[in-house]
């Protein structure tokens, strides 16, 4: 059975990299006694995939990992067992079973099904917030073109990121937005934030902002009528 695990990452664990998180879970699953499926061969490894790696320094309330298990009791049991072996900085938020793949249809991994992601950006410094920028968001979104420098394999190119920004608002002092996170059109949260700061005429000291990933979405609609749903909703409790 394929299982989708949603977890958060915060505190000092902001400073461990994506590969470190993978290595952490490989061992955590064993400590928790979860009956994970392995590949065959001389050095078997766990069948495990992750959705959109999180950049160094970011927090998240919506990280995802898919694993395959051979035996299980319940979502609740698996969640409890895994949580018990996690240190401060990683919490298991939900454990759900993914439906069996329909014959002749490609199995979609956590990685491949990502369409969008939402972020909150806040000031690290006490007492500072985006509260005063409420009115500016409409003007920002009204722009037809928002230029940003995007790093690609060929070097940096100037791109228009406006079509990839689906929502942007100020909420509880944080700048909150939903952007394209698909493999073809992925927009880094820092590009949106920098463009907005620029638009608002604000300057921030280096590493003065904390980025928090809130959720990762898949698109269950059609090309003309997208319907974004959180990755966890593709699974069911068991």
């Amino acid at each position, binding site marked *: 059975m394929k299982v989708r695990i949603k977890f958060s990452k915060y*505190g*000092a664990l902001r400073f461990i990299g994506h590969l470190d998180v993978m290595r952490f879970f490989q061992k955590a699953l064993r400590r928790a006694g979860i009956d994970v499926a392995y590949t065959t061969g001389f*050095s078997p490894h766990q069948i495990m995939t992750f959705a959109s790696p999180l950049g160094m320094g970011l*927090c998240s309330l919506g990280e995802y990992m898919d694993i395959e298990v051979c035996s299980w009791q319940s979502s609740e049991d698996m969640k409890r067992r895994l949580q018990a072996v996690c240190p401060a900085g990683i919490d298991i938020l939900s454990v759900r079973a993914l439906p069996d793949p329909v014959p002749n249809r490609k199995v979609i991994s956590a990685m491949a099904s990502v369409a969008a992601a939402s972020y909150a950006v806040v000031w690290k410094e006490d007492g500072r917030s985006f509260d005063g920028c409420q009115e500016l968001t409409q003007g920002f979104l009204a722009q037809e073109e928002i230029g940003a420098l995007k790093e690609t394999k060929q070097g940096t190119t100037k791109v228009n990121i406006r079509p990839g920004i689906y929502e942007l608002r100020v909420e509880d002092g*944080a700048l*909150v937005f939903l952007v394209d996170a698909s493999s073809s059109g992925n927009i880094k949260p820092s590009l949106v934030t920098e463009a907005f700061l620029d638009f608002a005429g604000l300057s921030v000291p*280096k590493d003065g902002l904390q980025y*928090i990933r809130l959720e990762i979405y898949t698109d269950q609609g059609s090309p003309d009528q997208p319907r974004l749903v959180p990755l966890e909703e593709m699974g069911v409790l068991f």
Partner: protein
Amino acid sequence: MQLPDFKNRLALPDRILLSVDKPARYIGGEVNAVYKDPERVNIRFVMCFPDVYEIGMSHLGIQILYEMFNRYEDVWCERVYSPWTDLDRIMREEKIPLFALESQDPVREFDFLGITLQYEMCYTNILQILDLAGIPLLSKDRGDDVPIVIGGGPCSYNPEPIAPFFDLFYVGEGETAYRQLLDLYKENRAAGGDRNSFLRRAAREVPGMYVPSLYEVTYHKDGTIASFLPKEPGVPEKVRKEIVMDLDSAPYPEKPVIAYTKAVQDRVVLEIQRGCIRGCRFCQAGQIYRPVREKRLETLKRTALAMLEGTGQEEISLNSLSSSDYSHLEELVDFLMETCREKKVNISLPSLRIDAFSLDVMGKVQDVKKSSLTFAPEAGSQRLRDVINKGLTEEAILQGAALAFAGGWSRVKLYFMLGLPTETEEDIRGIAELCNKIVALYYETVPKEKRNGPVQIVASTSFFIPKPFTPFQWAPMCTREEFLQKAGLTRHAVHEQLNQKRIKYNWHEADVSVLEGVFARGDRRVAQVILRAYQKGCLYDAWAETFRYDLWLAAFEECQIDIGFYTARERGKEEIFPWDFLDCGVNKAYLWREWERAQRAEVSPNCRQSCQGCGAARFGGGVCFEAKEGAAG
């Protein structure tokens, strides 16, 4: 909107953590790291491995002591490693004091800073640790406001080149005397004593403790030691190493700390025995850990299971100097293979002799096509192997290789040393010839249709460095030029072989070996060179990318210390060595006998064949009290 906690409670601000390589090195909080309430402990101890995190975290000794200390209710033991050069620069610029990983508290505020000394080339990193911590580099300049700095580990068997930097050395195995030392510390503090009174009492009352400042060294005109004596009565003339005789009940970490970032040793390590029966004459570990003490099979089975459960590691490795000599190896390996198959854990079996048994096991636990066989003949000719007392014969190597080729292996690694005592050009050519014979053997034994790609031999040579407490402690070491010439000769000889295309030859840097030679047999006067080199910017000398031979040479020059005095000079029978005040169990008379036998190319039997009377039997256990082969009863 509920946001997660991102408040920084670390010693380094986000800005710095995000600008250095692998910030996970500095945040602590790893799985199985121990946290205690500082208000509820009496003693804060910080254990240091003076190299980068990924290396230090792979070291078993620290994990054992960390476990032991943290089992004590009154002690909180934390860890610290050398900040990498990027953070080193920032900490100096911004005057950020070195901190322990768990509490993130400054090292300077601890009661003890314990530094493990695993190799000589970490000596400048010791100074870095002290410097960044804000602890005066020289013991004599320290007051009561800084931790007691303790050294331990293999290099403390000749602590003299770094003696002025330490308040105290703990000589021998850490499991035995620390409790007594810590109790003394508490007692001394309660009685209003200071650092000096503690060190004095430690030297007098606690076994295995060497306080360098309490000894006086005088020299002859020729620079050799005239006398090495305690400055005051009650301080022992000889410090005997500490040793654990019952390893089964000694503390062992069933839940070692697991690094987030990939450690060099990303696996659980099962120590099966301490010591080695073989007595190779170049090997220090083979002497200082005498006598061999094995752990019981039941202990090992229980520990292996507990460690796998406690860590979730995907690999287990055996640790010992020579695993093949462990009495219950077959049963242990059978058990591990069974368990690991069930748990999908990989097994790695280093230091196994190549024979039918080990090949059978390796064939089951690794991919034969991808793995290679390792032999360590150490010398190219039988004569020289007899000199160094390496029991491996050419016949055994060729037999092992033939078996392995039949089993599908086609890659062979061979390790040799250059510059061994009595070595001739013929011995060096023997290295190339042995490689050639192995290639030829492959073509002879494996029919064309069964060949699994071309055979590949990788021969590596390191340079021989005489070490204290070995029969070669009297031997002259080669100069840098001689080393390079020998490496050139080896390369040339390899090229002359018929099958040279299938042989790859690698050799070590000679510069580092020369320095290692100085530190290995150096005395107190060498400390000023280390200090000078550090001040000139030497750091991470074990790393090729940061090693600065030119700065080291300048430091020697400025301190007027002659490298050749410590390396190339042949020592006489009567010379007092800087490490003679230590008693590691084996005595000098036995070592001298072995040195003489070496010069006659006479081999000595191992401890199980017949006892050589090395002196280690006085510890009252281990292999010395097993029934010997062939002996009645």
